[in-house]
Every structure is written in structure tokens, then in C-alpha cells.
């Protein structure tokens, strides 16, 4: 069937008269607003999820595997029983799942650059940050999916957050804000590196220590002093503390403030660098 379609379309040579009409545009519309341009790029990101659903595979499967693995592997040993451990682990695993998803931001961006799609974007008369901000907004959809998958599995396994629906939603929102801010690290990598896979590899190297040397899996008070020092300054630990607190209905205001400030600082510092790289990328 595909063959027939191709041939039919291929044989129909462009009609000169239709072409003439199409290029003789009577009315040129004005520039789109920054918001409209950004949302158009977000729409593109969503279309890509629709056409390449495989990209959701990692987003959905790895949180499932991690949750199951850590809950049943360590649950008994660490907390005495699986359900108790799950209350501790789930907010952390949620943070990990979403943070790993941010890597795709840099990966997709680098793909667009290598394929020449960004060249076209850069040759359009639109608000310059629109392609990047639009893509990042589209990525938050992926983060949301990862969150929903992890939470659903958690609930099935026995996760019972005392913060209730409000606490959980606030926790997820907090996580999305931070993930959006962190994505700028990956846009920079995406613009600097030569290939999508190089971006992937480097990003993993950054995220692995940040997530494992944190308070996601175990209480840091059981760790050696040196490691504890790192865990205490690790931004991921603060994020996990904030999300955990919100979901448990006992918000840790210091951690929440810390995360919000860090998000603002990351964005304020890294977004301009991203834009400069984007403008000058040759």
C-alpha cells in the first residue's frame, strides 16, 4: 500500500499554475507573539511523542524497574518490611525517574541540530528562545507521565502518602519546577556536544553520582562521614527532602525554599548561556 501511495504522489509533477498561486501570497501575516511561537514548538514536541511513542518507553519502564527492584531488594533489610520502606523510597524514586528523563532534553536537541532542523528554526523571524522554551515545556509532559507511572505503581504496592492528594500534587509540581530548571544544563550539553549519544553518555555521568549519592535510597546518617558531607550539599538530596516532606504532609520549608531558589538561580544563570550558544552555534 505504501508503495502505491508513493508512486502516485511521485508521479504528480507540481502544477505550474497551482505553484504560481501558492507563491503569490497576497496577505502576509504579522509575526507571531512569543507565547504563540513557544506553544507551536511545544505542539511539535507533543507530536513527536505521538509519532515516536518508543521514546516514552524509557520514561515509563525504568521507574517501574527501579521501584520494584529497590523496594523488594532493600525493603526488608533497610526498613524491616517492604511497606515501611516504600513510604520512604517512593518520593525519592520519583525524583530519580524524572531527573533521568531530563537527559532526553539534551539528546533531542542535539538530534535536531545534527539533522539540520535547528537551522530552519534559526532562520525564522520568531522570538529567539521559543524553540528551546517550547521544547522544555513539551518535556514537562514527559516528566508528568514518568511521575504518574511511578506514583500509580507506588499506590498499587502500598504507598500511602499522609499529605493526601494535595501533598502529592504539590510534591510533583515542585519536582517539575526543578526538572525544568535542571534541563538547561542539558540544553547546554546538547548544544556543545557533537552527537546525541555523546550527550547521553555525559549526562548519565553527571546524574549517576547525583542520584545515588543522595538520600533517595537510604538515610544518610548511616553513611561514612565523607559521603555524608557530599550527600548534604547534593541538590538532589534537598529536592528529595522537599518532595518527601510535601507528600508526607510535613513540608520542610527550608528544603522547599532551597529548591525554589536553586531553580531560579539555575534558570537565570544557564538560560542566557544556552541562548548564546544557540545563537552562535555554527
Amino acid at each position, binding site marked *: 500500500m*505504501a*508503495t502505491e*501511495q*508513493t*508512486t*502516485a*504522489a*511521485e508521479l*504528480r*509533477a*507540481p*502544477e*505550474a499554475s*497551482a*505553484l*504560481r*498561486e*501558492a*507563491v*503569490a*501570497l497576497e496577505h*502576509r*501575516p*504579522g*509575526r*507571531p507573539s512569543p507565547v*504563540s*511561537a513557544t506553544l*507551536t514548538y511545544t*505542539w*511539535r514536541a507533543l*507530536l*513527536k511523542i505521538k*509519532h*515516536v511513542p518508543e521514546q516514552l518507553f524509557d520514561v515509563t519502564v525504568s521507574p517501574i524497574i527501579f521501584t520494584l527492584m529497590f523496594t523488594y531488594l532493600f525493603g526488608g533489610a533497610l526498613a524491616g518490611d517492604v511497606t515501611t520502606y516504600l513510604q520512604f523510597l517512593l518520593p525519592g524514586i520519583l525524583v530519580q525517574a524524572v531527573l533521568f528523563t531530563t537527559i532526553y532534553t539534551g539528546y533531542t536537541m542535539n538530534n*535536531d541540530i545534527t*539533522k*539540520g*532542523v535547528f*537551522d*530552519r528554526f*534559526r*532562520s*525564522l*523571524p*520568531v522570538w529567539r528562545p521559543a524553540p528551546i522554551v517550547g521544547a522544555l515545556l513539551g518535556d514537562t509532559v514527559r516528566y508528568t507521565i514518568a511521575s504518574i507511572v511511578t506514583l500509580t505503581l507506588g499506590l498499587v504496592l502500598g504507598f500511602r502518602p499522609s499529605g493526601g492528594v494535595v501533598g502529592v500534587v504539590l510534591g510533583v509540581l515542585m519536582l517539575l519546577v526543578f526538572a525544568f530548571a535542571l534541563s538547561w544544563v542539558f540544553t547546554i550539553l546538547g548544544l556543545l556536544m557533537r552527537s546525541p549519544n555523546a550527550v547521553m553518555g555525559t549526562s548519565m555521568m553527571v546524574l549517576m553520582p547525583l542520584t545515588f549519592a543522595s538520600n533517595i535510597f537510604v538515610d544518610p546518617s548511616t553513611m561514612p562521614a565523607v559521603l555524608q558531607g557530599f550527600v548534604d550539599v547534593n541538590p538532589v538530596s534537598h529536592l528529595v527532602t522537599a518532595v518527601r516532606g510535601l507528600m508526607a504532609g510535613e513540608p520542610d520549608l527550608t528544603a522547599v525554599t532551597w529548591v525554589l531558589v536553586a531553580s531560579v538561580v539555575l534558570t537565570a544563570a544557564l538560560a542566557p548561556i544556552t541562548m548564546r550558544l544557540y545563537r*552562535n552555534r*555554527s
Partner: protein
Amino acid sequence: MSPSSTDDLAIEARGLVKHFTSGKSVTKAVDGIDLTVPEGTVLGVLGPNGAGKTTAVRMLATLLRPDAGTATVLGHDVVRDADKVRSVVGLTGQYASVDEDLTGTENLVMLARLYGFLGGSARARSTELLDAFGLGDAGDRQVKTYSGGMRRRIDLAASLVMSPRVLFLDEPTTGLDPRSRNQVWDIIRVLVADGATVLLTTQYLEEADQLADKIAVIDHGRVIAEGTATELKRSVGQGAVHLRLADSAQRARAAELVATVLGAEVSLANDPYAFSARVPDDGGPAVARLLPALDDEGIAVPEFSLGQPSLDEVFLALTGQPLDEDPGASDDETIEEVA
């Protein structure tokens, strides 16, 4: 818009330079290029691989900042007024720059929205373009399923969403089969007839000859010759006669005869039936005597042509390096229909 006179320049570049440094080595990709393209005309930028064509186009299309020199498009500076330039130019890069994962329609609707078409008008614009480019039936398929020729057309359509007055086409037909190439040529002719200014780069002499009002030959980042196809050819010499005989055994004798009549050197072609000879400056009358003289000797000449030198010879004379002549034969990419 300024009052337009016929010699208004659509594109003007002065001393454009772009060098790429990697480690210790410096590539002088573009090394001082001047170009002028009057409105409504076609400039063909002709050069071999690595000549600097893409780099030059990227600078003119505001994708790359020149190291030195200035360029304006319809009077807007490509660095200072980059945004104004972007709103009047369309670019079809050397490599397809549509999103392969999206369908043809989605690609065009997205671009139409980015150019400011709202809601339904974006979709209408997309449909109009797809139909005009013979892609009406393929609009709902992902671009990755398109054949090479279809990809080029959707890429061209994407550059024409807002009917730019200036169009940059970087090797628009490289890798296409002759039929698709002709389709692209026809599209370009329609655009030009409609008043667009086109700067197209190509490695193919025939293409520049067919489409361009003026040709700039570039090599190693510099313009080494500029003019109309005729002027370039004339700068090399008067032209040549090309003969192809019925019997290859007669070639030696025929060549000798032609050399004597014309008073010029003869070059034998690889084809054992064919040879050619340069026509000397005052060789007109001698050319007229060639066929009767051959006939007297009983040599049949089924093919005889008198032509100006080919652009290939021009290139050879200018650079000391021949060019690929046949676009179809030398391609490393072959384009087939998708199965």
C-alpha cells in the same frame, strides 16, 4: 520599500570572511567574497566540494556570523538587522531540514504558525503548498517515508511558506534523479517568474547554465570568476567543433583533415568515433568548409556540432582542475522510491 529601479540589489556581500579553527589548523572556508545579486535575478554560485558555498549561504541567511566583511539582504544587514533579514528570506539548506518524524502537513502547519498564520489559515496554507508541490496525497505520512525527490519538494515548500522575496537554495538538486531534478528546476523557474530573487549553489555546470542569470565561480573560499554563462565561456576561447563519425576506422584521417582545414589542434575523445577541435579566432569560414572537405574524402559525419566551450572547460581553465560534469553519474547518494 525603497522606490525600486531595475538595478536595486537584493543581495550584496562585501569581503565576507569565515575561517574555522580546530586545534592548530585553520580552514579558510570563505576568504573574502564579494557578491551582488540584483532583485528578481538568479545568481548561481558554482564550486566544487569544500569551495565554501554552504558557509557563504549560511552567513547570508543569518545562521553564521561573518568573521569580517558585510552583507545586506534587501538593504538589511545580516548581522545587525538579522531579524529583518529572516522575515524576507527563505532557505533550503543542503540537507533536508524538515522534521522527519512529523508528517508533511504537520511540518508545514508548524512553519505556517511560526510565520504568523493563525488557526485554520495555517492548515489552509499547508494544504495549498502540498497541492502545489504535488504532495497532496503524501501530507499525512511521516516525512521519513518520502523519497528523495519528495523530501526536496517538501523542503522547498517549507521555505516558501511565507513567499520570501529572496530565496537561498543550497545545492537544491544534489542527489536527485533527472526527473526530480527537472521538477525542482521548474519550481525555481516559476518562483523567478514570480519576481523572487534566488541565490542557488551548485556543483553542476548544467544547472547554473539552465537557471542562473549570472554565475559566480568559487573555489577555496574566493570568487575566481563572475559573469553570465556566455561571458565566462567567451573568456576561455571561441568555441569548438565536435564531430562523431559513422566509422571509427576513419577517425585518424578525419582528425588530420580537420586540423589542416581549421589550422588548429584536435583532441580525440574517449569515444573512438568522436573528436573535437578548438575554433581559432578567425576560424568561421574554415568551419563552413569542414563538412564538404570530409564528404570529398568519403567520410560520413552523422553528428556535427559547433558550440561554445562548456562550463567544464571554463572551470578547468580557471582552476586547473576539472569538475564532475554529469550530476546523475557521480552521486554517492542514490535516491529511490521507498518500498
